[in-house]
């Protein structure tokens, strides 16, 4: 370790410069700023899709700050919780604004994160060497879902209560330990005061800590390997005389000003919802949640908030009849792997064994459809993490992939949105069938990606980024 060296500034240097020098000698403040933002060189060809990372950061801060103020007045007690939310809405000065910002912020967070992930899908942002960035991001998504789920119980309305009841009961589908496990999560035989208290603890401290840690990891990993761009080119392959990539610019001031503009447009949309449609037609604040939780009255229609409904639809689509379709699909997929993949014999054999166990498990007398519904529900979320290894396309960006790949992405998007819509509706025979179709499309998109992503005629990827000066 080098000896401590004090920065020597002339006696007439500004006090701020001296203070910064004093700090920099003891803590890498200027270095951190430069590494993470000030001198962080990012490709200059970012487009619209590249704003959502900063926006997610903004909403995270917004949720934490509004959350702190809500915690000052909210009562995590089954007899007081519902009333305390109304107290915030009516009696606490500006409480209504803080609460609407928080409730709208939750939905905004998911919209932003879904768009952020779409960007990754469009431009192959998760491809080597950015797999870990994707995994950290995926973990953020998981933590965010848990955070939203725990938070949704807190207003203690009917939908809070029964939504939590349904989701916790899902753990009951796990063989042998299921019932004990869901009892352990609830802390009671039904969702109750004990559940509310622990969900409050998770929502206000445990998960925010995890989220913040993961965001730091996500950003450090990103700034280590550098950002990708809409052309999917590695800008570090063309360095200038100053050692920085020729096609990159320092984030400050260029992306600082860019983000300020993006943030202001976002705030226009966000405020329009907060001030004019905080319920957003029953999607952001569900109507039934204005009725206090009642353990004796099950609502006719329990729908989770919209951001969970695509996955919830997969769960509901897994009916007993659908098991036969799934068994056939699994068998077909294994045959396909044996014929078409270049995996080793051992891997293929392992896949066949797992598939056989699954098919046997799907027989009506072995494990019921509820269990497999939970498995598919979990798989529909987890499979997103696999993208870096499922995508085998020779180019990263959709710009240089065969034209029809766009339609594959659109079909996937339509299936996802349709699943989301169906999850908010009462299941009917027709809706269930549509959800089953979309479920198959959803999984096919991922599971067949190693093949379809390599098919077709790819365009020539330019060596330098496409950029039109403003």
């Amino acid at each position, binding site marked *: 370790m080098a000896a401590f060296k004090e920065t020597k500034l002339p006696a007439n240097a500004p006090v701020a410069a001296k203070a910064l020098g004093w700090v920099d000698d003891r803590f890498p403040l200027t270095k951190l700023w430069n590494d993470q933002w000030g001198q962080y060189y990012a490709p200059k060809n970012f487009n619209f899709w590249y704003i959502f990372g900063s926006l997610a950061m903004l909403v995270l801060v917004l949720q934490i700050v509004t959350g702190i103020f809500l915690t000052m007045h909210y009562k995590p007690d089954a007899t007081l919780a519902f009333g305390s939310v109304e107290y915030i809405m*009516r009696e606490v000065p500006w409480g*209504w604004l803080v609460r609407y910002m928080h409730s709208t912020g939750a939905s905004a967070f998911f919209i932003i994160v879904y768009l952020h992930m779409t960007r990754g899908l469009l431009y192959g942002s998760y491809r080597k060497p950015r797999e870990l960035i994707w995994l950290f991001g995926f973990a953020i998504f998981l933590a965010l879902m848990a955070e939203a789920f725990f938070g949704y119980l807190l207003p203690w309305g009917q939908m809070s209560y029964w939504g939590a009841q349904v989701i916790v009961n899902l753990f009951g589908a796990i063989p042998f330990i299921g019932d004990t496990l869901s009892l352990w999560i609830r802390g009671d035989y039904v969702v109750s005061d004990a559940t509310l208290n622990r969900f409050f603890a998770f929502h206000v401290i445990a998960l925010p800590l995890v989220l913040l840690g993961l965001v730091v990891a996500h950003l450090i990993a990103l700034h280590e390997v550098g950002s990708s761009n809409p052309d999917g080119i590695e800008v570090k392959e063309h360095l200038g005389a100053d050692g920085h990539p020729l096609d990159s610019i320092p984030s400050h001031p*260029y992306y600082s000003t860019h983000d300020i*503009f993006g*943030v*202001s447009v976002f705030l226009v949309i966000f405020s329009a919802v907060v001030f004019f449609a905080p*319920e957003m037609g029953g999607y952001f604040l569900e*109507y039934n949640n204005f009725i206090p939780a009642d353990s004796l009255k099950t609502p006719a229609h329990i729908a989770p908030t919209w951001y969970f409904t695509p996955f919830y639809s997969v769960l509901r689509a897994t009916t007993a009849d659908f098991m036969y379709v799934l068994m056939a699909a699994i068998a077909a997929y294994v045959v396909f792997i044996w014929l078409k993949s270049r995996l080793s014999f051992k891997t293929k054999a392992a896949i066949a064994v797992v598939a056989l166990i699954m098919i046997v498990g799907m027989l009506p007398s072995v494990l019921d459809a509820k269990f497999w519904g939970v498995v598919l529900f979990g798989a529909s979320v987890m499979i997103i993490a696999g993208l870096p290894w499922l995508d085998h396309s020779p180019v990263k960006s959709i710009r240089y992939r065969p034209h029809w790949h766009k339609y594959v992405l659109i079909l996937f998007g339509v299936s996802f949105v349709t699943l989301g819509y169906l999850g908010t509706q009462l299941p009917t025979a027709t809706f269930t069938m549509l959800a089953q179709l979309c479920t198959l499309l959803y999984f096919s998109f991922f599971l067949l990606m190693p093949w379809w992503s390599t098919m077709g005629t790819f365009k020539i990827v330019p060596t330098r980024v496409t950029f039109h000066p403003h």
Partner: protein
Amino acid sequence: MNFPKKLIAMLALLPCLAFASEAGHPLDKAPARESLSSLQNGAKLFVNYCLNCHAASSMRYNRLKDLGLTDEQIKNNLLFTADKVGEMMTTALRPADAKAWFGVVPPDLSVIARAKASGAGTGSDYLYTYLRTFYKDDTRPTGWNNLIVPNVAMPHAMWQLQGVRTVKMVEEKDPHDPSKTVHKFAGFEQVAPGTMTATEFDTATADLVGYLEWMAEPVAGKRKQLGVWVLLFLAFFSVLAWRLNASFWKEVK
């Protein structure tokens, strides 16, 4: 039918299904109520007819000052279930008695206008229809029944205003199952007149519902007023941010 045909048929029928899920008696559109005098009249009806059994435990009496009333006016005319204007709108009905008399504890009405919104209409539409579709039914313990909440536990609280009505039902074949019949609503029949004409009663109910809507979110008006200024500021700020961004980016070649 083969699968593709089935799928096409299914997609074509989607819109019908969306409406079918909202079956039942259709909701009337609640007339908008914005004038303070209507809302004050609604408040008067509310404390006279609703607060006997229902509470509005999140609502402070003196919040009625937002409707242009003074503490004195509230105290002298509307303060039925509390001693001070700073208290909440509680009810005199004890939960145990309610359970014995009606079978249920009447729900708190603080946010009822928000809770009753659905795909079929706004919460106000629901309440406006509900309060105007009570009818005499001697088979019910209270003697009253309701079109949109069949076998409702609540009696017709405003029957003296509306008078007594019975309902005409016709038997019709069930459109989904020809072997069954369904009872279909075919109109009300006025048996005894009330103190109000039908039009007056509709107006009064609309005032009451307007009040309930106001009470569900007293800040709603202020929220929208403030929203206009916030959006104007943000629009202006966006223009500045846009130009700031452009001034930096013009040097990027």
